[in-house]
């Protein structure tokens, strides 16, 4: 187990990076605590896989240092890093049984046979694979194979972190749910640090204690799911976290305040010159819709209602042609074309200056 520190860590695939566009991963500082779960989240090509490969040792970073418990491992080969990894496609030793698969990392490290038997039994019971120990590993289903991959990491007592590279991609939708839960349980029972790479924000939100959002090789924000949701540091995080994305309403500076015709919510106007774009960001979940169209901060006409089951998404047109979306459970009682009153708590209306959180 270890604390992982990324110290000014960056990577460029070209030898002499000219300008920031040459970086697959722009230099970043992060500290990951022992025993927690982390997610690297972003669209394809955002640098999350490069970051994972640097941690696993597949890629040697062009800048900065990587520390495991204070020890510099930047140039240490994968095999000596004490990490484990689960890949997108299940990797198993196809000629071996489940038991032999689980024992393999210990055999490679010349652990005593009695100790190997004991560890394999412990891990098998943790993963509920006890019944399958003597089956050929290749006969198992994809989700069980992923558990074997995970087990090969868990069986080692010295493992610093388990890296999960989109491990749920090839799993049946019905099994995804189960496997995600299993991963969380294992983290809780063993206290091993887990780092998940994914493009699926809901997967990241439900899995991780802390999420690192990335885009174009640049760290956007790192924080708990709650922080990312309620205080996205910029418009990209607001867009990427949450579905539907955060509503962004343009503001104008008038009489010392930033305001919009759409809602009677204002923010303090800045003192600096304001050639900048100011926007108000409101989560669809933070908008409450009421039948009363008078005692509220704005009125919108319902343009569209999407039923998503328990809850629904309502698209509204406000004054000045501003379109917003709201998420509600009362969608079944609404009809398109009617006017609804809109309420938003002032705390939930965030101010963005040129796309960056200003408050």
């Amino acid at each position: 187990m270890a604390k992982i520190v990324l110290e000014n860590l960056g990577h460029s695939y070209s030898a002499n990076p000219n300008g920031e566009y040459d970086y697959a991963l722009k230099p970043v500082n992060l500290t990951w605590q022992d025993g927690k779960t982390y997610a690297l989240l972003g669209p394809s090509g955002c640098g999350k896989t490069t970051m994972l490969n640097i941690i696993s040792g597949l890629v040697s970073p062009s800048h900065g240092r990587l520390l495991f418990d204070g020890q510099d491992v930047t140039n240490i080969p994968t095999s000596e890093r004490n990490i484990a990894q689960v890949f997108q496609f299940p990797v198993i030793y196809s000629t071996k049984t489940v038991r032999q698969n689980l024992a393999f990392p210990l055999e490679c490290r010349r652990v005593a046979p009695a100790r190997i038997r004991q560890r394999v039994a412990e891990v098998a019971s943790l993963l509920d694979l006890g019944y399958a120990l003597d089956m050929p590993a290749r006969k198992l289903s994809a989700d069980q194979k992923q558990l074997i991959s995970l087990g090969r990491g868990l069986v080692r007592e010295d493992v610093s972190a388990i890296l999960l590279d989109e491990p749920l991609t090839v799993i049946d939708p019905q099994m995804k749910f189960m496997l995600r839960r299993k991963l969380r349980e294992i983290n809780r029972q063993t206290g091993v640090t887990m780092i998940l790479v994914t493009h699926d924000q809901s997967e990241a939100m439900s899995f991780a204690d802390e999420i690192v959002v990335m885009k174009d090789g640049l760290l956007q924000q790192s924080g708990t799911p709650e922080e990312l949701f309620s205080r996205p540091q910029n418009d990209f995080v607001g867009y990427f976290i949450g579905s539907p994305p955060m509503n962004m309403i343009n503001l104008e500076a008038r009489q010392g305040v930033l305001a919009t015709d759409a809602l009677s919510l204002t923010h303090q106007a800045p003192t600096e010159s304001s050639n900048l774009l100011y926007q108000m960001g409101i989560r669809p979940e933070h908008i409450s819709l009421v039948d009363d169209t008078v005692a509220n901060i704005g009125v919108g006409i319902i343009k569209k209602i999407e039923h998503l089951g328990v809850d629904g998404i309502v698209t509204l047109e406000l004054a000045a042609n501003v379109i917003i979306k709201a998420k509600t459970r009362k969608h079944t009682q609404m009809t398109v074309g009617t006017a609804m009153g809109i309420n938003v708590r002032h705390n939930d209306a965030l101010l963005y200056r040129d796309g960056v959180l200003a408050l």
Partner: protein
Amino acid sequence: MLSSKHFFLLPALLTLVAIILFPLIFTVRVSFSSWDVFQSGLDFIGGSNYVRVFEDERFWQSLKRLSLLSIISVSLQYTLGFALALAVWKQVRGGRSLRVLFLIPMMTTPVVMSVIWRTVFHESLGPVNDILSAFGVAPVLWLSSATGAFISVLIVEVWQWTPFMFLLLLAGLVSLPKEPYLAAAIDGAGTWRTFWQVTFPLMAPISIGALIIRLIEASKIMDTVYVLTSGGPGTATETSSYYIYIRGLRDFQIGYSAALSLVYLVIMIISLTIIAKLLLRTLVGKDE
């Protein structure tokens, strides 16, 4: 009903049937005749040609020799081809020209190269004995001793066909996924373990394909033998094909050689099927 799907298959199928089926049926018919130099034509003598086959010690000897030769040469080709493929697999510098170089022997005509090899193995004027003598080794009777001739044929076969193994195995290696290797590194497996636990199992289907193809081709060996040793000295390098050739096209015992070829064909099909099944079971662990 002739639909578009027949447009694809029929031309090739009919061509092959027309070219192959007549000779095959004809061979079966001839094998029941006494057609030879003195009596050309299709009479009917029952199964006496087949009885003769089973009593023909020289044929069974040639079959034994052929099995030995093909199993040894194909094993060598596989081992060397795999080793070569692994050696140049990840090599970047100079790798391409080495790969091209290693492929060249399979592109050359076996009989033509055998003509060259004859001069190479020439016992007084050839370079091999010359070089060996520089190391103080006495001249080897490459082509005129039984063992020497067998080894010469083996060397030429290995030279000619290792590239074929190399080609198939390297093509397989370059298409392997990289994750299993990273996983093995993470699990702490060294070079040796990684090869046996990752590379070898992943390459098993390709290995089986390559081995079977080479065994099929090796069992037909005849060109090299014809040019290099003419089956000699004595019958030391006489393979089945070559023996059937002698009986059929040199002695002109058409009927008898037809029987020989059919027996040989049946043995080939049965043994190759068994070998394929065995390879599948040992390398892939299929349990059907």
